[in-house]
C-alpha cells in the first residue's frame, strides 16, 4: 500500500517545484517550466499508483465477500425504495486510509495535518494531476515568450499543490487552508496580465466574491467542530468524525441545518452557483490554460468536492432524504438554467464555456441536492475532462487561428479546414458535454437525472432536461460560429466581406493548426471525453465508479442507485437531439426566423436582460457595493473620525503624559542618577588607586616584602 500510505507526497512534490521555480526560474525560464512539468508528472504517477492500489483494496475486500455481495446486489435492486441496511450487506466496508500528526494544540482543540485517502480522494487526485499535467504541457507552448513565464509556472505549481492538499485533507481546517490557497492562485493567475485594467479588476472580483462566500466556510468549519462536540462530547475537525456525528442522530437538526447552509454558501461562491456565479465569466481574463485547469476542471469543483466530502452534513441538515425541495437542489437547479441561458448571448467563446461550466456545476450541486452522490461526483469526473478539452480547444483557436482574440463573431468562423485537429477534438468535447449517446456526459448527466426522478425529485429532473436542451443548442451555436461559415478574422481585423478569403499575402498570419504541445493534450482529453463515461454505465451493467469511489462507511445508507431504464435514456437522447435540431435549423438551414431579437420587442427585452447578465453585476457593484460605499461608508467615516479617533487620540494623550512623567522623574532622576552615581564612584576609586600603580618593579617588590614582613610580625606577636 505504498502509494496510498504515502499520498502526502502528491501535494508535496508540486510545492517543492513551486519553491524551486521561484528561486531558480528567473535565470532559466524554460528548464524551470520543464521542472514544473516533471514535478506534476511525478505527482501524476503517484496518483495513478494510489488509484490502482485503492482499486486493489476494494477488489480484495470484494473478493472475500463476493457471495455476500451478489446476494446484496439483488437486495438493493429489490429493496431500493425500502432503503434500510441493504447497502451494507451489498458491499463490504472499506475504510479510508488515515494518517495524521498534530500540527498544534490550542485550548484543547487538536489541529492536525493529515491525509484521508478513500475513493473520492483518489479519484480527485487522479483528475487534478491528469488535467494539471496536460495543462502544464500545453502551457509550455501557449505561454511561450510570455513576460511572466516563470511566475506563471510557479503559480501553476502552487495551485496544483494546494488543490491536492485540499483533496487529501483529513480535517476541515486543512481543507480550508487548501481552499484559500487555491483561491489565491486563482487570483494570481486571472490577473496574470494585470497591466490591463479589466484583467486586474476580474482578478479582484473573483477574489472578493469567493472570499465573501468563504465566510460561510469559516462558520461551517467552526460549526462542524461543535457538531462533533454535541455528538461525542469532544470537538474535532476530522472529516470522518464530523460525518459520523452528522449521521449519529445525536445532533439537533437545527444545528446541522445551519452548518449545512453555511457550507452551502461556501459552495455557492467557489463553485460559481447562482447568485454568486458572476466572478467566473470574468475570470476568463486569465490565460486559457488557467481557465481550463482552475475555472473548469479543478478549483471550481472544490465546492462540489466539499459537498461530497461532508455529504452526511448536507444529507441530514437539508433533509435530502425523501424528495421534495431543498436549498442545495434549488441552488443547483437554478444555476443549471440561468447559466445555460446566459451562454446563448455571449460572443466570447471562453465566456460561452464559462457559463456552460456554471451550468454543469449546477448539475453537480443539484445532483448532490437530490441524493445522487455517485452521479454528481461522476459528473465532476467526466466534466473535468471534456470541459478542459473544450477550454484548451478554444485556447488553441485563439493561439493559432484568431490572433489571440476570443470573439467568435469578429475573429473566428470557418476554422474547421485550417485547424482540423482542434476542430475534431472540440466536436468530441461538445458531444460529450451535451450528452450525446455513449459519450462521457451522457452517462454522468443522465445518472443525475435518473436519480432525481427515482427519488421523488421530479422537478429537478425536468430542470435538468431543459438544461440539456439548452446545453445542446448553445454548444452547437458555439461550434457554428467558430468553425463554420466564413472566416471573419482578417489579418487587419477589417470586417469586410473579402476577409473570408485566406489571402496568400497573409500566410504568416493566416490560421493554421497548433503545434503538437497543444494538440496532444487535446487528443488525450478527447479520449477521456469518449471513454470516461464507461466507468459507470448502468446500460451495460458497469458500475465500477460506484463500486470503487463511493464511500461505504460513514455514509448515508438510504441513497438510491437507479436502475437503467430505456425510457429515461430515450427521453434524454431525444432532448439532446431537439437541442441540436433547433441550433441546426437556426444556423445552418436558417428555417427559423432570423434576427428575431431585432424585430420583436419581447424577445429584444429578453436578450437585453440576458446580455446584462440579469443585472446581477449592476446589483452587486451598483447597489451592494455602491450602498456600502455611499451612506454606510460615510457613516463609518464619521464614526471613525469622531468616536474611534477620539478614543485613539485620548489614549495617545494619556500615554504621552505617562511617558513624560516616566521620563522626567523615573528615568532621568531615578535610573540615570543611580547609574551615573555608580559610574562616578567607580571613577574616583580608580583615580585614588591608580597612584599605587607606579609601574616601577622595585616599588612593587618593596610593597611585597613589606607586606610579608608585616605578616611575619603579625604572626610573631599573635603567637
Amino acid at each position, binding site marked *: 500500500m505504498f502509494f496510498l500510505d504515502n499520498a502526502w507526497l502528491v501535494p508535496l512534490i508540486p510545492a517543492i517545484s513551486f519553491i524551486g521555480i521561484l528561486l531558480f526560474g528567473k535565470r532559466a525560464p524554460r528548464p524551470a517550466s520543464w521542472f514544473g512539468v516533471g514535478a506534476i508528472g511525478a505527482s501524476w504517477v503517484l496518483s495513478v499508483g494510489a488509484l490502482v492500489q485503492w482499486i486493489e483494496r476494494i477488489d480484495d475486500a470484494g473478493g472475500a465477500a463476493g457471495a455476500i455481495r451478489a446476494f446484496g446486489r439483488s437486495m438493493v435492486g429489490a429493496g431500493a425504495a425500502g432503503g434500510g441496511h441493504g447497502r451494507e450487506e451489498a458491499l463490504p466496508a472499506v475504510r479510508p486510509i488515515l494518517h495524521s500528526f498534530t500540527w498544534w494544540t490550542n485550548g484543547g482543540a487538536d489541529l492536525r495535518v493529515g491525509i484521508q485517502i478513500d475513493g473520492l480522494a483518489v479519484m480527485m487526485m487522479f483528475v487534478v494531476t491528469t488535467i494539471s499535467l496536460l495543462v502544464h504541457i500545453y502551457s509550455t507552448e501557449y505561454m511561450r515568450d510570455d513576460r511572466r513565464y516563470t511566475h506563471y509556472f510557479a503559480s501553476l505549481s502552487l495551485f496544483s499543490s494546494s488543490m491536492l492538499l485540499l483533496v487529501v485533507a483529513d480535517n476541515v481546517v486543512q481543507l480550508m487552508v487548501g481552499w484559500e490557497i487555491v483561491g489565491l492562485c486563482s487570483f494570481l493567475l486571472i490577473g496574470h496580465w494585470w497591466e490591463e485594467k479589466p484583467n486586474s479588476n476580474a482578478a479582484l472580483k473573483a477574489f472578493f466574491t469567493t472570499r465573501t462566500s468563504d465566510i460561510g466556510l469559516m462558520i461551517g468549519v467552526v460549526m462542524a467542530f461543535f457538531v462533533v462536540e454535541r455528538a461525542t462530547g469532544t470537538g474535532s475537525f476530522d472529516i470522518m468524525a464530523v460525518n459520523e456525528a452528522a449521521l449519529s442522530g445525536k445532533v439537533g437538526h437545527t444545528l446541522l441545518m445551519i452548518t449545512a447552509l453555511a457550507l452551502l454558501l461556501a459552495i455557492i461562491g467557489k463553485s460559481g452557483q447562482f447568485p454568486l456565479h458572476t466572478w467566473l465569466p470574468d475570470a476568463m481574463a486569465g490565460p486559457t490554460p488557467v481557465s481550463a485547469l482552475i475555472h473548469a476542471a479543478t478549483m471550481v469543483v472544490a465546492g462540489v468536492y466539499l459537498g461530497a466530502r461532508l455529504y452526511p452534513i448536507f444529507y441530514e441538515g437539508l433533509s435530502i432524504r425523501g424528495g421534495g425541495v431543498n436549498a442545495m437542489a434549488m441552488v443547483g437547479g437554478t444555476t443549471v438554467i440561468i447559466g445555460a441561458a446566459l451562454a446563448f448571448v455571449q460572443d466570447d467563446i471562453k465566456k460561452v464555456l464559462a457559463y456552460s461550466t456554471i451550468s454543469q456545476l449546477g448539475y453537480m450541486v443539484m445532483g448532490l441536492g437530490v441524493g445522487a452522490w455517485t452521479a454528481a461526483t461522476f459528473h465532476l469526473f467526466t466534466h473535468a475532462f471534456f470541459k478542459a478539452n473544450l477550454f484548451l480547444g478554444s485556447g488553441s483557436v485563439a493561439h493559432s487561428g484568431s490572433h489571440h482574440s476570443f470573439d467568435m463573431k469578429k475573429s473566428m468562423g470557418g476554422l474547421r479546414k485550417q485547424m482540423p485537429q482542434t476542430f475534431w477534438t472540440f466536436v468530441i468535447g461538445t458531444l460529450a458535454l451535451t450528452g450525446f449517446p455513449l459519450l462521457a456526459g451522457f452517462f454522468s448527466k443522465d445518472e443525475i437525472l435518473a436519480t432525481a426522478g427515482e427519488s421523488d425529485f421530479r422537478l429537478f429532473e425536468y430542470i435538468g432536461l431543459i438544461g440539456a436542451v439548452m446545453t445542446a443548442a448553445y454548444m452547437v451555436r458555439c461550434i457554428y460560429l467558430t468553425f463554420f461559415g466564413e472566416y471573419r478574422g482578417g489579418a487587419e481585423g477589417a470586417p469586410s466581406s473579402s476577409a473570408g478569403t485566406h489571402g496568400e499575402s497573409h500566410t504568416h498570419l493566416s490560421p493554421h493548426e497548433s503545434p503538437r504541445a497543444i494538440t496532444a493534450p487535446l487528443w488525450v482529453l478527447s479520449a477521456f471525453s469518449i471513454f470516461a463515461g464507461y466507468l459507470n454505465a448502468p446500460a451495460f451493467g458497469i458500475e465500477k465508479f460506484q463500486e470503487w469511489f463511493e464511500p461505504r462507511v460513514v455514509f448515508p445508507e438510504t441513497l438510491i442507485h437507479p436502475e437503467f431504464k430505456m425510457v429515461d435514456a430515450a427521453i434524454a437522447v431525444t432532448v439532446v437531439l431537439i437541442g441540436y435540431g433547433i441550433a441546426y435549423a437556426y444556423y445552418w438551414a436558417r428555417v427559423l426566423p432570423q434576427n428575431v431579437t431585432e424585430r420583436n420587442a419581447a424577445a429584444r427585452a429578453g436578450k437585453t436582460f440576458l446580455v446584462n447578465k440579469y443585472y446581477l453585476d449592476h446589483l452587486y457593484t451598483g447597489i451592494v457595493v455602491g450602498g456600502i460605499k455611499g451612506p454606510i461608508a460615510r457613516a463609518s467615516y464619521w464614526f471613525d473620525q469622531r468616536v474611534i479617533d477620539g478614543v485613539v487620540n485620548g489614549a495617545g494623550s494619556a500615554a504621552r503624559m505617562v511617558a513624560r512623567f516616566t521620563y522626567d522623574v523615573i528615568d532621568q532622576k531615578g535610573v540615570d542618577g543611580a547609574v551615573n552615581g555608580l559610574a562616578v564612584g567607580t571613577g574616583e576609586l580608580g583615580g585614588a588607586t591608580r597612584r599605587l600603580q607606579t609601574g616601577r618593579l*622595585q616599588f612593587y617588590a618593596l610593597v611585597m616584602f613589606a607586606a610579608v614582613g608585616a605578616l611575619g610580625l603579625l604572626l610573631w606577636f599573635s603567637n
Partner: protein
Amino acid sequence: MMLNQFLLLGAFLFCTGVYGALTRRNSVMVLMSVELMLAAVNTNLVAFSAYRGGDVAGQVFVLFVITIAAAEVGVGLAIVLLIYRNLRSSDLDDVDVLKG
C-alpha cells in the same frame, strides 16, 4: 653542631639579596640578588638538615630549588634580553609602561 652561625649567614645573605633586589637598577643585578636570596634559603635548609641528624629531605629540597633556580635564571635572562632589545636599556626604572 653550631646552628646559629649558619642561620646568621643565611639571614645576612637574604638581607643582602633583598637590599640588592630593591635598590639595584640594572635588571641583571636584580636577578643576581634573587639568586642570593635563594642561596640563603638553601643554606638554611642544609643547616637544618644537618642539625636534625642527617635528615635527607632538606637536602633533596635544596637540589630541587637549585634546579628550578637555574630554569628561572634562564627565563629571567631571556626577559632581560627582550627588554634590552626593545628599550635599548636594561635599567628597571625605564620599564614603567604599567604606570597608572
